[in-house]
């Protein structure tokens, strides 16, 4: 049985800022959802089901907030699901929503992901001691910095590579009105002189903490054919997970990420990602994760990721732009960040990316998100044409 065709036909996104004091959580998600519906030429009553994603409930202090958000998202009387797969959740949420259409269960599904991090402190929220476990008390940066150092040792990458990514993504964000950070005068020196957080990560190598929401309407083939705007056809979706730690686990280049990429590439007929995609929106919360994921996603041989970054291949005017929206380094409402990657990939192939639109050649883009201890992966391939 082949999955039914599905496509992104509406995308909506809030601007991302440190604190949205002007809206409640309901107001935040509704703002993104309303934009997505408008884009799809739909109203709340047109939607068959709603899928909500966000990272830990401790970030806002509300248990299963989608219950309280049900009416704000027009879900009353409808099916509603809540996905939580750590940092990859925004991507997973889009995939769960797409599967409702791919299975032929629904025609029009609203997917929404959000985080209102100003309600609490994310580093605190990520380091609460668990019963019966030794607490890491390190936040995400403290967890990932040793893996980055392992990557540097393994690949021989020079120390400035991460800073290059930090500058590239913040410059890209200057063209994205929704991006949280707009650092007009950012340059290598500014990043190098920002204070050290977790060696080798300096302050400007790290993502911000944002309030924001992302929403998408995913429709069936007949719905997408009749949509007012161009659809982003979904050519493949994949998720993979592996345990956090065990002897011999490669945490720098995780097997789950490589398997997930192989799966989604096989579905979409991708054989050479660097050539087959026009761009990629990839979850890079710490600058060094660009070269690391370039290798994990097969855009280059292992050990060569930093060379692509250094050569400018991943810049907006490079041969394979990564995160032309400015990426997670420029906006990070954690639970939404994965869906922003998936949605920005869709906007690129719909040619709706405004001032940060890349030039389309293959008409295909990759969306990727990861979470936990580099152990949860979700990916999709979208295109401006239907699959063959």
């Amino acid at each position, binding site marked *: *049985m*082949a*999955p039914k065709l599905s496509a992104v036909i509406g995308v909506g996104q809030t601007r991302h800022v440190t604190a949205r004091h002007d809206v*409640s*959580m309901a107001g935040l998600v509704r703002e993104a959802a309303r934009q997505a519906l408008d884009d799809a030429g739909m109203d709340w009553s047109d939607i068959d089901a709603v899928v909500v994603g966000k*990272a*830990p*409930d*401790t*970030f*806002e*202090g*509300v*248990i*299963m*907030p989608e*219950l*309280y958000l*049900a*009416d704000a998202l027009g*879900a*009353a*009387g*409808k*099916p*509603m*699901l*809540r*996905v*939580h*797969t*750590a940092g990859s959740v925004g991507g997973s949420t889009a995939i*769960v929503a797409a*599967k409702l259409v*791919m*299975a*032929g*269960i629904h025609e029009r599904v609203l997917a929404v992901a959000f985080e209102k991090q100003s309600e609490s402190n994310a580093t605190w*929220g*990520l380091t*609460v*001691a*668990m*019963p019966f*476990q030794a607490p890491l008390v390190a936040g995400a940066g403290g967890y990932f910095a040793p893996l980055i150092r392992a990557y540097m040792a393994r690949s021989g990458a020079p120390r400035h590579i991460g800073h290059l990514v930090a500058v590239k993504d913040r410059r890209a964000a200057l063209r994205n009105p929704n991006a949280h950070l707009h650092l007009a005068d950012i340059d290598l020196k500014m990043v190098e002189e920002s204070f050290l957080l977790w060696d080798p990560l300096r302050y400007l190598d790290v993502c911000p903490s944002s309030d924001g929401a992302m929403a998408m309407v995913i429709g069936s083939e007949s719905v997408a054919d009749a949509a007012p705007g161009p659809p982003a056809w979904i050519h493949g979706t*994949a*998720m*993979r*997970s*592996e*345990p*956090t730690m065990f002897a011999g686990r490669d945490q720098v280049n995780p*097997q*789950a990420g490589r*398997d*997930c990429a192989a799966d989604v590439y096989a579905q979409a007929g991708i054989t050479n990602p660097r050539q087959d995609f026009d761009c990629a929106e990839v979850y890079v919360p710490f600058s060094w994760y660009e070269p690391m994921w370039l290798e994990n996603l097969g855009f280059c041989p292992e050990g060569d990721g930093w060379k692509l970054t250094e050569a400018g291949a991943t810049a907006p005017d490079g041969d394979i732009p990564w995160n032309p929206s400015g990426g997670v380094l420029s906006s990070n409402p954690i639970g939404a960040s994965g869906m922003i990657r998936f949605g920005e990939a869709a906007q690129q192939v719909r040619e709706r990316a405004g001032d940060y639109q890349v030039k389309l050649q293959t008409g295909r883009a990759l969306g990727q998100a990861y979470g*936990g*201890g580099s*152990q*949860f992966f979700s990916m999709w391939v979208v295109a401006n044409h239907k699959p063959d």
Partner: protein
Amino acid sequence: MRDVAVIAFAQSLVGHDREHNEVELISPVVQAAVSQSGIARHDIGFTVSGSCDYLSGGPFTFVQGLDAVGAWPPIKESHVEMDAAWALYEAWVAIQVGDVDSALIYGFGKSSTTDVHEVFSLQNDPYYVAPLWPSTIDMAALQACAALHAGVTTERDIAEFSAACHRAARSNPHAIAAADVSADEVLAAPMTHPPLRDADIAPITDGAVAVVIAAAAVARSVCDRPAWIRGIEHRIEPQALGVRDLTASASTRAAAEAAGVGDAPVEVAEIHAQFGHEGPLLARALGLGADTVVNPSGGPLGANPLMSAGLIRIGEVAERIWDGGVGRGVAHATQGPCLQQNLVCVLEGEGS
């Protein structure tokens, strides 16, 4: 739609488990369910769980669950911050898409590590309701009052339901609140949370549950009498109490109609009634008649592990179909204050 059946079910429940962490709770039930399924662990196409971070008091509770399920080599896996009955729904969808033929679903949680009734008041609207700290029992008592005042049920109906659940629980080795108690004895006890009595309130329960489902070809090859999922639907209501009818569960009724509950007689129903008044209220919403046996396992009033008690309902109905005792049954799961969100699953044996 592809035919999909429940083919394995295992549970491990304790009142206050002070010995095991979550991984230790999950591991044996996953092993038991996988073994019972007859499918090798790495041949199961998809894995999905349901849990709640606020039970453990920290973020990413589900991450450690991976240590218990054999996620190496890496697996196709997902998680819902919902009762694991909805994890089963996501698994059913994955099988409908067609790229996997079987799925492992598990739910887990330790309710005993906190005052869960009070903590779960954080499930309410954070701006207008949660600051009042209404416990889950307070909210249920409000609904019970509304149902009594509307004449939808009576104190005796509630007591009859609660007593029947505790009596039925005596035959369930997993139940932790079994008692030979009559409705008169329940009514003679004081209302501890008016109009609810202690016998009307589900016990605090720690535990883990695992289920395996599979598409027809696989199910038939490993199971003599698969429990076929003939309908599975879920609906949500707005949360605010003022905008919904507390005396009827509109979302249960809508899900039941969509799942086809009324298309044929229902021999057995396992309903996720965590408070006595929810029994009569849900039976009405599901359209159950007097000839349906309700909660033969004792239901949540016998044992109520949060985040898996809904999935247990599906497993309990499936077990009765496997052994040939039942041809058609209905499982119900709920979450949210005052039955806000409800799932209904119709299960049938081969000949039904």
